[in-house]
């Protein structure tokens, strides 16, 4: 009996002393933190992907609070959470948030095994960055996809996968948060974080080759040869520019008329997520100043990642 009492007293005393010590230490070393940071953090996705440009979600939360104190949340965007999360953040901080259009990663290369023959075979570490150090890589294209999947490894959202048939990565648009990790991982800067477009529809040059036309043409069947036909076709909207033998479509200016898709002699320009084309071309053209006609929108299948229109 004595022993039990002794044990209870001894343990109780130790517990009490520890509690007092803990209390004072925690008071002494307490870190004063703006409580809003915690609140903002709580609504963030906590993926810590770094897509916002800050080290992790708490870093971003801190930046948001600081920016709110200065009066504007402009330029701050959590690409993973997107608009809804930014609205919540703005709510907490008592700010208004500007609408930002959703973006998505686009692989600007269509150099499939068929389009772009492999001239040599690489043997070594399975990493695009390593292959890039050999110079051209396995194909005759110095700008195209190297196919080792550094982008796949960089993606935290399981949103990009290699297609074994084409040897190219494919973006799962449902999962893609446009954090830009894949774009940074690609040694050839093939992946662009691009406006998703109305209903996910967009027109993109799926090529990154800046070589002269003859060389680009020889390297790949689907390369942009910098002929400039698309630029001429788009004179009215000036959405297409040609730089270093490569055409680029400015997503903010593109009116989705799809004329460039038709004129491209190498089929390097692709219309993505558009419904399968009907034999009647006129209807699409007549309404090219608006977004896609509603009749076609109902047929749209957003699950299909790429519906290529040739």
């Amino acid at each position, binding site marked *: 009996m004595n022993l039990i009492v002794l044990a209870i007293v001894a343990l109780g005393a130790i517990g009490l002393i520890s509690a007092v010590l803990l209390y004072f230490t925690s008071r002494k070393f307490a870190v004063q933190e703006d409580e809003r940071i915690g609140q903002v953090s709580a609504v963030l996705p906590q993926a810590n992907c770094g897509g916002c440009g800050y080290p992790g979600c708490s870093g971003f939360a801190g930046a948001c609070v600081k920016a709110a104190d200065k009066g504007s949340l402009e330029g701050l965007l959590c690409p993973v959470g997107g608009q809804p999360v930014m609205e919540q953040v703005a709510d907490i901080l008592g700010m208004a948030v500007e609408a930002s259009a959703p973006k998505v990663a686009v692989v600007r290369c269509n150099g499939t095994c068929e389009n772009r023959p492999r001239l*040599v075979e690489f043997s070594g*570490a399975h990493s695009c*960055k*390593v292959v890039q150090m050999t*110079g051209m890589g396995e194909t005759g294209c*110095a700008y195209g996809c190297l196919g080792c999947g550094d982008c796949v490894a960089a993606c935290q959202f399981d949103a990009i996968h290699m297609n074994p048939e084409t040897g190219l990565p494919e973006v799962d648009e449902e999962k893609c948060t446009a954090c830009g990790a894949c774009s940074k991982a690609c040694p050839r800067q093939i992946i662009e974080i691009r406006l998703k477009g109305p209903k996910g529809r967009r027109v993109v040059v799926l090529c990154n080759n800046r*070589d002269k036309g003859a060389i680009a043409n020889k390297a790949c069947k689907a390369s942009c040869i910098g002929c400039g036909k698309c630029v001429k076709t788009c004179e009215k909207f000036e959405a297409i520019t040609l730089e270093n033998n490569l055409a680029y479509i400015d997503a903010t200016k593109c009116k989705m008329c799809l004329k460039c898709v038709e004129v491209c002699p190498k089929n390097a320009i692709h219309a993505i997520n558009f419904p399968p084309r009907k034999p009647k071309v006129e209807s699409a053209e007549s309404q090219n100043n608006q977004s896609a006609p509603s009749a076609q929108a109902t047929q749209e299948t957003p699950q299909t990642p790429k519906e290529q229109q040739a």
Partner: protein
Amino acid sequence: MKTFKIGGVHPQENKLSAASPIREAALPKQAVFSMFQHIGAPAKPVVKKGDVVKVGTLLGEAGGFVSAPVYSSVSGKVNKVDAVIDASGTRRMAVVVDVEGDEWEESIDRSTELVTLADRPELDGKTIVEKIKNAGIVGMGGATFPTHVKLCPPPGKVAECVIVNAVECEPYLTADHRLMLEHADEVLMGLQLVMKAVGVTKGYIGIENNKPDAISLMKERAAKYPEIEVVPLKVKYPQGGEKQLIDAVIGRQVPAPPALPIDTGAIVQNVGTCFAVYQAVMKNKPLIDRIITVTGKSLAQPSNLLARLGTPFQQLVDECGGLPEDTGKVIGGGPMMGKALLNLDVPMTKGSSGLLIMKEDEARRSEPEPCIRCAKCVSACPMGLEPYFLSKLSAQADWETAENEDIVSCIECGSCQFTCPSHRPLLDYIRLGKSTVMGIIRSRAAK
């Protein structure tokens, strides 16, 4: 016997062409002169399509101080000035010349008799450096660093001796070996010119003792020059690395970057460079040809060819019996540090010390296994680094730690990967890490 102190490996030597005398290769039909045949700023083309050139005509002028001019090694007409795939595997600016006949610039002395320093008493250091610079001479061992830059030490640094790199530690290659056997006097004269250019009175020639004939011949010929010493070295790779050679010959170690080899007081020049210096200074001949070892286990005649720069590798292979059926890989340079070529249309350049044809069964890397932490890479590394760790850091993109672990000290000799029992691609990743970290350091310095 002397050698360097840390690490090193001993690959199979396979010096198949050691007994084959130097042959002159035929003229190509078309020669391609890359403007990127050296480290530093590229040369600037000074000819245009349709120009008529002779052997020794300037094609590209030096693009800066750390750069070298490019001369035509053939006579004919300029076909085009355009980007062409070269030995680096990338498309870069080059001058393409269609060959017609073999006309030489008159200023070049084509006689073979030996001109000694005694015949040209008027030569002083400055003139020699100037001539070397104008001849477009670069390090011929493969590093292709412009020679005149090495001969002008930065202010505050003083050269004490010149070391000739006659080690040829790369397996298969025999070009330097044959050069010493067949042009010993010219090499010695070239060394004396280099010594005079930097104003030193001590010269060493470091030769690995797997070339006893070269050692005895050089000793015999150097006997009349008391200031030149031939140093036999124990066979160990990478003895031909500049830092390792200085350590082996005079026992001094170059500190970590940004220190330069000149901090030890030594200037290292390759045997081939000495030969080229002799020809440039005494014979007025710019760098237009070099000796290249064309070799491989299944090649019909492994040979040492004296070939004009710009000759496509295909032609050199044809002169040695044609490309074997079982070819799996073609390497420009030696097997340890050479670069795999995309095809044989690539032209030879100033730095092409060898062309190695590997059989198909030895062309591919073995499947990597997990690291068993055996530390063999650590003991093989001649720079005292930890390759297993650096490779892991690079794969994980931890550049900060990699920098602290001295990744920039890596000389990319490949000893770690050569020795790894798990066949891990150590150097692939370390090289990636090194270039990234060097980029980070440069951008930091720019700020």
